């Protein structure tokens, strides 16, 4: 069974094919949802809502414009962003200024995907959204600004701060691991 078959089945509102779509893509899309919605229960809610939207809008999907996976990721991201209060982007609390730390390459050696996810989720909301959109999804700042309702410059600034904060956290994590080994 190909992706096209699943799409056709979903267009016919066939529950069997809808379920197949959920089974095949939910792990990947749940990761996307979790990056924007750190609380696990909320992330699942977002994913459920996103799938309902996907079923409703799958007729509009054009395979010539991109992969189904990309199209569904976009829907998940939009659903997650809609749930968040946009005020958190415009009134982000001030984060203390960190110096730009240069990380040693070994920092990444023991980091798994789940660790990275956890690390990203420790970022403040505004930084996390911009970081995800810019770094993981590859959205330009202009588009991020439109999506989040913030200025383009704010997007750039938030991304820069997010990266600095991540480096600090990675550096601190590395120090803790060193201490643990010594102990």
């Amino acid at each position, binding site marked *: 069974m190909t992706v096209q078959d699943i799409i056709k089945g979903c267009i016919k509102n066939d529950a069997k094919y809808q379920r197949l779509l959920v089974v095949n893509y939910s792990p990947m899309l749940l990761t996307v949802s*979790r990056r924007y919605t750190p609380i696990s229960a909320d992330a699942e809610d977002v994913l459920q809502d996103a799938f309902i939207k996907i079923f409703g809008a799958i007729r509009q999907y054009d395979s010539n414009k991109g992969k189904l996976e990309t199209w569904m990721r976009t829907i998940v991201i939009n659903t997650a962003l809609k749930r968040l209060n946009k005020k958190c982007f415009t009134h982000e609390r001030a984060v203390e200024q960190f110096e730009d730390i240069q990380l040693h390459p070994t920092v990444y050696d023991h980091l798994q995907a789940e660790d990275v996810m956890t690390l990203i989720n420790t970022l403040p909301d505004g930084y996390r959204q911009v970081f995800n959109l810019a770094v993981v999804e590859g959205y330009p700042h202009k588009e991020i600004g439109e999506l989040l309702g913030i200025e383009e410059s704010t997007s750039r600034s938030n991304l820069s701060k997010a990266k600095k904060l*991540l480096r600090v956290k990675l550096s601190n994590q590395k120090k803790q691991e060193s201490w643990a080994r010594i102990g």
Partner: protein
Amino acid sequence: MGPDRLDKFIKNQVEQHKTPTDPDLLWQKIQAKQNVEEKPKRRFIIFWLLAGALLLTSLGLLYTYYTLNNDDNTLTSNENPIENTSANTISNTNTNTNTNSNSNSSLSSSSNSTHLSDETTPSSKVPTEEKTPNEFANKNALTKSDYSKPKTTNNSETEQTANNVTNNSERLATAKTKTTDASTNDTKTPKLPTTPSVNTDVHLNSNKPSSNTSTTIVEQKNANTKNNELPTGKQEKNSNTSEVNTIAFAKSELLLISNLDFLLKDQDISNEFIENQKEKKNFPNYRYKESYKLIDNNWTFSNGLAFTYGTAPRTLSARESTNNDYLQSRNDLETSLDAVRLNLDFMAQHRSGFYLKSGAEYEQINERYELYTSWDSIIIDPNQIVAIVITQDGDSTSSFGNQNNLINFWNNKRRYNRYHSIDIPILVGYNSAKADKKLSWFIEAGVSMNLWFKARGEINNTEGEAIRLEDNPDLFKPRTGFSLLAATGLSYRLNDTFSIWASPSIKYHLSSITSKENTLDQKYLNVGLQVGVRYHWTK
């Protein structure tokens, strides 16, 4: 390492990462959400269907009401033409005989052409005709004081009539005399006496009408002999035939014109009165009175809006004895709270005090579901100090590892279950209302058709698991049922238009609100206090 390295690393790690999840559970939740999202549409349709039905009913009743009201007005305006058939008969008689009476036709068509042309059998109207002109004259004389002038004649009312007639008649009567054909008029004039009770004596100087014309209206018994000969049909053809015919024609014309004149003036007065009422903002009351008169005070109509708040103790019963344990658990976990009802009704009340009432009612029954659960779990806390080693030098080193903690979790789940229905009640009642008393009592009873269209909340299933009603539509499908209604209370009339009432109300649902798939029957007895306000269309 530059910033790009960090970006690439994170992107590679995260982009294709898959979070372990239970797709089947997720699929079930999605289906449940889909059902919940589809439901409102269905409810929406039901709601609008009922609202539409209610609106149509109201519009129909309003239409009926205004139609009746208009009929009443028509009757009122027809009153004069009916009473004035004598004049119309005469005019028709002359129209038949006098082909040149164009002015007559044109005048008739101005306002009362229908009534005039309809009268073709004057003899059948004799009883009415003998009385009505005088009555009509009296009526107009009484109402049109501005037009009356003092006269020396004994009958002042007829003088006023004559006065009104004179000015209008002179001009036309003169014109007619010039074209009247004497021979044809001979055959028709005997019909004249059957019509008027007011005998009009017109003395014309045939071709010099206006300045020398004098008109006198006297009662029948005082009429002179010459004129009395006309009705009997015993008149002889003589040289004065032309004059007689002219007189007869003039009489008919005078009567016609005078009545038209009255009609027009009466209409003017009516319009003036209505305008005055409108300015005084009393116009609605004026209309009420008319409709009140029309319906002969037998029926009055009103709309009511009521709110009922009370309790709704329920009766759960197992369809099979094997479900008694489940029944017990449901009773333990669910508590009846309260019930609200919102009612919009239409009421038709007979003068005897009995009334019929129907409309639409929304009902919501609220319950509480409370489930306390507790469980123990071992939580593994990583990177905790599990040992501290003190060396001989006195230095201490900590040993890190996983720490197992036994934690007791508890959860008190509380949900509020709501059952919604839309009802169509039909009630019969009695109200002791009297015109001179504002306070009255009433008693009513009836049946109601219920449409249970929605259930929300949580219950335990037969396995003892909490399930959401929204996720299990089979348990509470939209279904219809019947209930019995009864109420008795007091009503207080605030003014001619509004009244308020309060009454204890009881509603017993005969049917279970659960579907056949459910193992339990669930019935309610709704007891509450009802308060409402009523708008009275008619007094």
